[in-house]
């Protein structure tokens, strides 16, 4: 089966002007591609530049140099079209507390230009797939963490995008709900979706990811398949070895 690159990131840098620290390089020459039917794991310690990279993919930040294309659309030239091809689940995204789950998901369907009947059918389908029937008409403010995360997932999937970007998708969930969500992600991969999955939980990487990029201090330390990273061992060990090695190399005195 020939794989199609749905997401292409080419030589992206991002410089922030911080009022106190001056120019801060959050990303330096990051390049990778993500393919249909595969899950791409984005790994890195806190402050590595993952959130900045994901926000660039989501078009809420612009790269200082370099380019990003999603489903063949260059993000900087047509950000709205790029957003239509993508579902983005942010780790900090909130829900409208006074809207019901159904209203909220329908609202985002409207923003994606779907008609009323298509929205109704899709909401029912997602409700069944994610097990949301029991709380679909409850206000989001009254839902548990697991239920809220399912609503977030439904929101990003309502327009059935070919690309899914999931940032910390299971961070606040108990093991049962986390397993449900992971099974859902696996099912979406089987449907040919291109999925970018950012997480700190190495067990999830072991279970879900096909390809992996390790980012540290804005640079890509490793890019390849999960098996190439693990080299027969555990992903967590390989990851820590890479990051510690890079930290030691960049610490003062390392050159001497």
């Amino acid at each position, binding site marked *: 089966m020939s794989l199609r690159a749905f997401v292409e990131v080419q030589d992206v840098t991002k410089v922030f002007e911080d009022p106190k620290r001056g120019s801060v390089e959050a990303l330096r020459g990051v390049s990778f591609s993500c393919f249909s039917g595969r899950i791409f794991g984005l790994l890195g310690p806190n402050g590595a530049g993952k959130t900045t990279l994901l926000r660039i993919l989501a078009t809420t930040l612009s790269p200082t140099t370099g380019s990003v294309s999603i489903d063949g659309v260059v993000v900087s030239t047509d950000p709205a079209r790029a957003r*239509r091809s993508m579902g983005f689940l942010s780790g900090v*995204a909130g829900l409208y507390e006074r809207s019901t789950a159904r209203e909220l998901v329908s609202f985002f369907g409207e923003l994606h230009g779907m008609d009323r009947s298509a929205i109704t059918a899709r909401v029912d389908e997602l409700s069944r797939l994610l097990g949301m029937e029991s709380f679909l008409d409850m206000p989001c403010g009254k839902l548990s963490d697991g239920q809220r995360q399912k609503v977030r997932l439904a929101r990003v999937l309502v327009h059935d995008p070919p690309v899914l970007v999931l940032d910390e998708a299971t961070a606040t969930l108990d093991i049962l709900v986390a397993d449900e969500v992971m099974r859902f992600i696996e099912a979406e991969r089987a449907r040919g979706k291109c999925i970018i999955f950012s997480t700190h939980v190495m067990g999830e990487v072991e279970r879900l990811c096909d390809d992996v990029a390790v980012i540290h201090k804005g640079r890509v330390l490793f890019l390849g398949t999960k098996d190439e990273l693990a080299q027969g061992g555990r992903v967590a060990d390989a990851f820590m070895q890479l990051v510690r090695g890079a930290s030691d190399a960049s610490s003062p005195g390392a050159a001497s």
Partner: protein
Amino acid sequence: MRWSTVVAIVRRELRDILRDRRTLITSFVMPVLIYPLLTIGMGALTKSERDKVDAAEIPLMIREGGNPVASRPAVPEASTPSFLACLLLDSRVRIERPEFPDKALEDGKILGVINIPGDISARVERREQTIIDVRLYSAHPLSEEVRGVVNKALARYSSGLVPLSADVEDLSPPSHRGAAILGGMLGFILISLAVSAALMPAVDLVAGEKERGTLEALLISPASRVEIVIGKFLTVLIIGTASTAVSLGSLAVSMNSMLSSMKAAGKIEISVGPGAFATIFLALVLVTALFASLGLAVSAFARSFKEAQSWMAPLMFLVIPLGMMATPPTTMLSSFAWVPITNVALLVKDMMRDQAAAGDVLIVIGIMSALVFVALSFTVSLFQREDVIFREGGVPLFRRDPRRFAPPTPAAIIAVLACVVSTFSLASVLQGAHSATQLLVQQSTFFIAALVAWIATVGPLRGLVGRIPTRAQALGGVLAGLGSFLAVVQLHALRSLIFPGPATYEADLQKAVGPILELGAPVAVLLIAVMPSLCEEFLFRGLVQSAFGAGNRAVSGVLVSAGMFALIHFVPAQMLTAALLGIILGVLRLRTGGVMAGMLTHAVNNGMVAAVALGGSFLLPFAGEGAIPGLSATATRVVCLAGSAALFIAAERLTRARVAPSASDG
């Protein structure tokens, strides 16, 4: 309850609040500054209005024994003055003899009709009850002066033992009296309601959503930033308008019941026709729209709901003085139609008494609509800036200067202060010298002080000049100069409110530069336009702004340099305009990374002043005095301000930095 626990909680909370600079500024610094300013401003406005009233003529029809008095009679100094003579002691009284006195009263051609009994002196001598019959039209702003004139005459004519009094009849319809009593205050109350109805939902819809994490989800959707801003703006507008309408209804019912006794007696009536009601409502909707967009802009900028709320206080402080300016009875819409907020409050007053001129109404609606458009465009531009939407620190209201100058040491600042002090001393030493000599000495001092301070404390001189502007930026500087001239001189016209005085722009100008003009046009242009643009820009934008605006203090740099620039203009009336010009030049310095574009702006601005002074009287309408042929004074002002805005927009586009920040620049 343990008091030690309560004290510990209070101590922690207080410490937290005291560490929040915004709370300190809005709770303590702003009230300390705003109320004195408000008192001074209101005092100056009241005095200015009083001066106008004291200087205004009072046209009266006076009948003596039923016969109209034709002119001021000559009164022999030795004789006992008659009541008529006592009336005419007030030099403001002008005698009129209209054919239809009541109509003349209604039209404002006369302010009162005074009937003096023919046998007044005999009756007073016999100590018989004598009545002076006075008719006036209380809806006219100056009608109270008629009562004052009559009361003073009564006091002068009799010692108080004589049973002499005035019977005042008010011919104005009850609805006009209602408008006169409620006056601008009602407009002020309605504006306050509209503003608060807009600000609260605006804060929740952006800053609240930022805090709850729902804004990012919306930004990631296919909705464009313009669609998001317009959607939120319309939501706030609908809620704000509905809330204002409800408040208006509630206020009407409350006032109706409060004024019922006066209404029952037929003394007043509050009646607003459908056309007037629609106009007032439209003006209030525009106020709501303006503050809806300002509220959205402020809350887009804020990092949290609490921060957005603390930014709302300055917006309210802006509304209070502008609204209060409409409350004196003599403040007229025709003079203030171009002042936002004040114009709406005055429009409410004039619409209630059916006296608003259609041209003034159109100007108010036009000005407010233009402001809504500008505020909304600003909000959209903020939403498109990632450093605002994902703001984590600092105040990036202005784009950061891409060329970071090395901050001058305190020695530089001391040198600057020494320079300013020496200028003041020189001004006193050279007080009798020719204006050209004074200007030459002052400008040379600025130039030398800037050079010496920079070289001694910072290093390479090229840093003082900054980056050389591109052609587009230079053109932007020229356009900003024309825009500044149009804006600054309009402010000069406005300054008469704060610093009342009979001086005109032309008179002020001749006083300031008259002696320099005698030296011929080339010298005048050199001294007025060229030298200040070089020397003052080196000092204020080159040195002072760099000294105070290094690092993340770009805004402080602009404000301090503009403040010092204003101070060296000595005359209080000029300081206001100099401060505005200083801010424009400071922002240009930030945008272009150097002082040269600002030099062009300064030279063009001053060059236009020189052109007016050198006999370009046809330019006076653009300098806030007189009118463009075929237009009213207010319309001329609006045209100038619109032209100024267009020039600034063009300058903003042209001076936008196109070079990416580079660390090697420093």
